[in-house]
């Protein structure tokens, strides 16, 4: 089998061929490493690739396969967002303040991948500390959208999304604090899934907004995303917010009818800000699903109108606290300065980029004496209202459907001047993080050659149900996997 075909194969199919001994783990890893070498100078998805390490893991995976001890994805390569700690492999969060940092331990998800025998291709680019939705806030490089190299892949997990879209990785992991898995998945035309908060251990994920952060996978199909979710989820005593539940059991996805599926359409997520091409593709999808028997009801969740504000108070507040650890004492570079505070202040001034500083400032302000009640407490109250409204909706409806992003991929540099321009586009993805719900983005077509993402949300803990519904929706939609033509 030639390399080109291997890099256009789903993870499930790759794993099947590996188990059937039709292809070796090393051959698969080489095909992807070669493709990264050939294409990544153009796309900028990866910050670190270590060919020898990857091939060593592939050899070990092959040993597992040869002893018939492999799991569902043994030998399948995967890319990791560079905010996931990898023992012995640099982990930077795309920030100068962590340049050269080599974690002494693996994140729990990384240990799980290694145990299962997946091969790690490298570390993918992101907005610095996952703060952004275009991957343009990386301190090191731009990542380009494989569907149009002048456009952003979305963010903050833009490197992971673009790598899967371009066939440089069959699977990738990202993290989703306000949409950072689902939005780049939408903009790159792949599947992105955020599990229920607490189903995936955050141990070793470098923290941004601890009550919102959740690790999630990218793949070409819902089945791929379900398979990898099963590997990375499950209770972990190292994360005290980890739920006492087993892994997401999603290996048994079944084709099925959508008849009687109750779908809510919150009008707040279908506002006038929706790009006409996106609105058209979402409506076409709704029509297709309705013909298959799904029942749609327009609802109103009034607090969603305050989602962006609530998020941009709570997430920076948590970030301002989490990022206090970067002080140039235990890791990262240390700048010269006067006294202890002078050293810390200059280290942080020189190490953090502008957007990170902005969020630390806004978060510190929102938590400071005199403003705490007006901003932080109030935002938490709105968060409570939002969760309550969703809980009520999920008593009546199976899923909530909306666009993932109100716009398709935007031009690089187009939205960087106004500090609110990009943030105002996050309103469709933020609610899932506020309420801890699982959410998934699927490609539902193209507008002017750019992918359009359809988002489905389910009640907390209904990850399996959501993946099963998404699987049926994917089969009903007439959008067979397409490949960007840049290569």
């Amino acid at each position, binding site marked *: 089998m030639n390399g080109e075909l291997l890099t256009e194969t789903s993870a499930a199919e790759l794993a099947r061929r590996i188990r059937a001994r039709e292809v070796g783990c090393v051959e698969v890893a080489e095909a992807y490493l070669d493709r990264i070498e050939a294409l990544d100078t153009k796309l900028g998805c990866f910050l670190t690739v270590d060919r020898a390490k990857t091939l060593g893991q592939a050899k070990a995976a092959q040993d597992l396969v040869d002893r018939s001890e492999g799991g569902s994805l043994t030998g399948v390569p995967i890319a990791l967002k560079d905010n996931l700690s990898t023992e012995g492999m640099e982990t930077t969060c795309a920030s100068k303040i962590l340049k050269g940092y080599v974690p002494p331990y693996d994140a729990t998800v990384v240990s799980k991948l290694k145990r299962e025998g997946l091969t790690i291709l490298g570390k993918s680019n992101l907005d610095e500390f996952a703060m952004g939705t275009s991957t343009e806030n990386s301190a090191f490089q731009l990542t380009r959208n494989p569907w149009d190299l002048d456009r952003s892949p979305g963010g903050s997990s833009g490197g992971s999304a673009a790598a899967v879209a371009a066939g440089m990785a069959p699977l990738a992991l990202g993290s989703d604090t306000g949409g950072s898995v689902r939005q780049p998945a939408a903009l790159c035309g792949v599947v992105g899934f955020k599990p229920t908060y607490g189903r995936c251990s955050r141990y070793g994920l470098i923290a941004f907004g601890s009550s919102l952060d959740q690790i999630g996978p990218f793949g070409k199909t819902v089945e791929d995303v379900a398979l990898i979710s099963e590997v990375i989820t499950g209770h972990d005593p190292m994360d005290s917010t980890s739920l006492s539940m087993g892994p997401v059991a999603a290996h048994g996805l079944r084709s099925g009818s959508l008849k009687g599926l109750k779908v809510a359409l919150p009008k707040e997520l279908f506002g006038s800000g929706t790009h006409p091409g996106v609105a058209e593709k979402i409506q076409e999808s709704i029509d297709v699903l309705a013909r298959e028997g799904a029942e749609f009801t327009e609802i109103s969740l009034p607090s969603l109108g305050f989602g962006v504000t609530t998020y941009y108070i709570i997430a920076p507040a948590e970030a301002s606290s989490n990022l206090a650890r970067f002080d140039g004492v235990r890791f990262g570079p240390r700048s010269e300065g006067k006294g202890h505070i002078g050293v810390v202040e200059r280290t942080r001034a020189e190490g953090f980029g502008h957007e990170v500083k902005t969020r630390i400032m806004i978060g510190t302000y929102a938590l400071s004496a005199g403003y705490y009640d007006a901003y932080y407490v109030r935002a938490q109250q709105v968060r409570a209202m939002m969760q309550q409204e969703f809980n009520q909706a999920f008593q009546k409806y199976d899923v909530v459907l909306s666009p993932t992003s109100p716009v398709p991929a935007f031009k690089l540099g187009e939205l960087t001047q106004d500090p609110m321009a990009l943030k105002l586009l996050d309103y469709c993805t933020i609610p899932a993080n506020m*309420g801890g719900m699982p959410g998934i983005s699927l490609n539902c077509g193209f507008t002017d050659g750019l992918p359009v993402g359809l988002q489905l949300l389910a009640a907390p803990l209904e990850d399996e149900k959501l993946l099963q519904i998404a699987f049926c929706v994917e089969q009903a939609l007439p959008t067979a996997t397409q490949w960007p033509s840049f290569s």
Partner: protein
Amino acid sequence: MSISINEVRHVARLARLELDESEILSFQGELNALIGHFEDIQTIDSSGIEPLSHAVAMQNIWSEDTVAPTLPRDRALANAPISRAGLFVVPTIIED
């Protein structure tokens, strides 16, 4: 509400960020733009609503207090910008 220059200085100090005068001015503009967008939540009637700090209600996660291997000292220190005699070297806190 709008943020004054002195408040920007105060917040930067709390956040341990050294900013020069031009940055302070630019952050004043940016923070005011952001805060301006945030005013909408002041219009909501949230009286009697219990603030939600965490989406999944959990409390008191206990673990047994057992002795177990931890990271060896040399590996814990490996990323330190300066270490000496098996310790992290911190900047001087109390001047002579």
